[in-house]
């Protein structure tokens, strides 16, 4: 279990000072696939490097299973990193790269040999064991980097955007592969990415970061369906934002009055004060449906119908102002029921809309 408490990192000083991490606290369980998700410059890599030991935080503590990690230099931490650039040693072969950590730990020769073979099998690189790292492809280098970091059996594996250099198809493959490896080895993975899809498909939990702070922590479904604030809702997936009025809230439901005057139930903000007043609602495009104008919660005019293959996006100009997008999955032999210019009504079931924190 990793416990990070109040981690703050300030680079430089005086007028040039830049706060890369602002009072970050998070607890990551053993054997968890934990993802740090955020745009570039949000501090996710800095946090990773603090755990690895390449950066000392200005304030705060980092503990691994109750042991203070900050007292240990990087080479004494039971933590290994898969670098974004892989950082494979070009003067060593694939097998020697994987053996490096074990040799540095002074493991017996026989154990090193068997572990290296096991790792080569695990990442399916056994036939290329004696190649130089410059003689294998990007995807293969990725696997070697993974095997090298896993070989010493660290308690925690840090992965710094390891898939960003791979092409689309290979990335898909490696996503599943990583999940499999995490499952098989039982090692805690801390994965850094700016790719929301990667985060959603692989993680047990995601921490969405922005400007050096963690904005929300939760499971992929939680984060996607119930974003706590506008940044999270906007960063992950597409979202419709509606200005509305909160009438009352109890527990995790809130009674909302829309700009059309109609009322609907929404999810109350998980960690905000749900005081009556003006709030922002977030609704995912696929959670809303189109119907006759008079029966909708909101009514408007269809301005665009965009066909995407798997689904179709309907762009609606809402009568009370603002735009709304509805996404419907395309079915075979479905006839186009709406066309640009039609009057339509927007419907969404109670509880799918989410009240955002201001």
């Amino acid at each position, binding site marked *: 279990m990793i416990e990070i408490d109040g981690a703050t990192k300030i680079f430089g000083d005086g007028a040039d000072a830049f706060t890369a991490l602002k009072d970050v606290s998070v607890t990551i369980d053993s054997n968890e696939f934990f993802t740090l998700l955020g745009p570039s410059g949000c501090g996710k890599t800095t946090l990773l490097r603090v755990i*690895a*030991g*390449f950066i000392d935080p200005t304030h705060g503590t980092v503990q691994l299973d109750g042991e203070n990690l900050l007292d240990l*230099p*990087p*080479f*004494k931490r039971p*933590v*290994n*990193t898969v*670098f974004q*650039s892989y*950082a*494979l*040693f*070009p*003067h*060593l*072969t694939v*097998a*020697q790269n994987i053996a*490096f*950590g074990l040799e*540095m*730990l002074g493991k017996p020769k026989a154990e090193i040999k068997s572990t290296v073979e096991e790792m080569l099998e695990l990442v399916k690189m056994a036939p290329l064991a*004696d190649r130089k790292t410059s003689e294998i492809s990007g995807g293969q280098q990725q696997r070697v980097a993974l095997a*090298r*970091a896993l070989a*010493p059996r660290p308690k925690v594996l840090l992965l710094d955007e390891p898939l960003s250099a791979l092409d689309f198809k290979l990335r898909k493959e490696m996503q599943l592969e990583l999940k499999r490896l995490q499952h098989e080895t039982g090692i805690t993975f801390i994965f850094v990415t700016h790719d929301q899809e990667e985060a959603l498909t692989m993680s047990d939990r995601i921490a969405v970061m922005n400007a050096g702070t963690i904005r929300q922590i939760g499971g992929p479904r939680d984060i996607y369906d119930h974003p706590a604030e506008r940044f999270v809702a906007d960063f992950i997936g597409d979202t419709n934002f509606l200005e509305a009025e909160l009438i009352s809230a109890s527990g995790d439901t809130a009674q909302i009055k829309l700009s059309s005057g109609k009322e609907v139930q929404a999810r109350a903000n998980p960690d905000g004060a749900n005081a009556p007043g003006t709030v922002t609602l977030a609704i995912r495009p696929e959670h809303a449906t189109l119907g006759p104008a008079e029966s909708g919660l909101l009514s408007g005019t269809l301005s665009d119908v965009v066909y995407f293959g798997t689904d179709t996006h309907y762009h609606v100009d809402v009568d009370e102002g603002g735009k709304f997008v509805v996404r419907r999955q395309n079915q075979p032999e479905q006839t186009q029921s709406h066309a640009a210019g039609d009057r339509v009504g927007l419907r969404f079931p109670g509880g799918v809309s989410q009240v955002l924190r201001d």
Partner: protein
Amino acid sequence: MTDASTLRARGERRTRILLLTPAMLLLLLAASGPLLIVLVYSFLTPGAYGGVEWIFSPKAWFNVVAEVDFFTDELVFADAHLTVFWRSIKLSLITMLSCLIVGFPTAYFIATRPAGSRDMWMLLIMIPFWTNLLIRTFAIMELIRNQGTVNTILMAAGIIDEPIQMLFTEFAILIGMTYVYLPLMILPIYASMERLDFNLVEAGYDLYATRWKVLRKVIFPLVKPGVVAGSILVFVPCLGAYVTPRVLGGGKQLMLGNLIELQFGQLRNWPLGAALSLTLLAIVMIALVFYVRAVGKEDAGHGH
């Protein structure tokens, strides 16, 4: 069509030969020519007032390693020459090592500075290199002579009672040559160090390598080409060094360069000078072959 392409290939080859001609001519005249003259001279008889007489004699080559005793006419080893050979090789090796010991950390230091200030550091290394060799040598002399800076300070501080004799010793030559040839070590090491991906250093730390292990197992193997080049660049001119041993060794601690100069100058034995020059060349070549082979073997040893 085949005809056309053969014709074109032939034309291209002619152009290539034409383009190579100036360089080949220059090499022939400026490198092989003088060497050939030296080789021919080494098999001639010394002239009474310098120069050579055109009479074939292998005596000069003979004299490189042996001499006829002046009193007994017995054949003995030219141990004076051998002493000089040995001193040259020994001092060159030690200079190479001390340049490496000082130059490697320096190159590392410069390569790890922010990109903007690296040029400034390199300039500081290069400025002495652009200064006249004689002036630099005399500057070292000023530092280490008996009434020089070092002795004066040590005596004023009460650490020593009388000056330490540093000038005109092998130590003085060593200091001088290390100082003079240091940039030749730093430059190639810095060049390979600058290309080093410092992510690899982090990867080393991450994989449980201590600082020393990272240096030995990651940094050193990757900058080895620079170390090899630097060592050769220092060792070769050291072997033939003339000015530094002359000024700082005071004519007592001869090195090969001085011995050769002596033959062409005061001793008026041009054939022996020529033979000694070629011996020097041979030592350099043999040393290089050994060095490169040793380094190459270590490389191969990295495999399974």
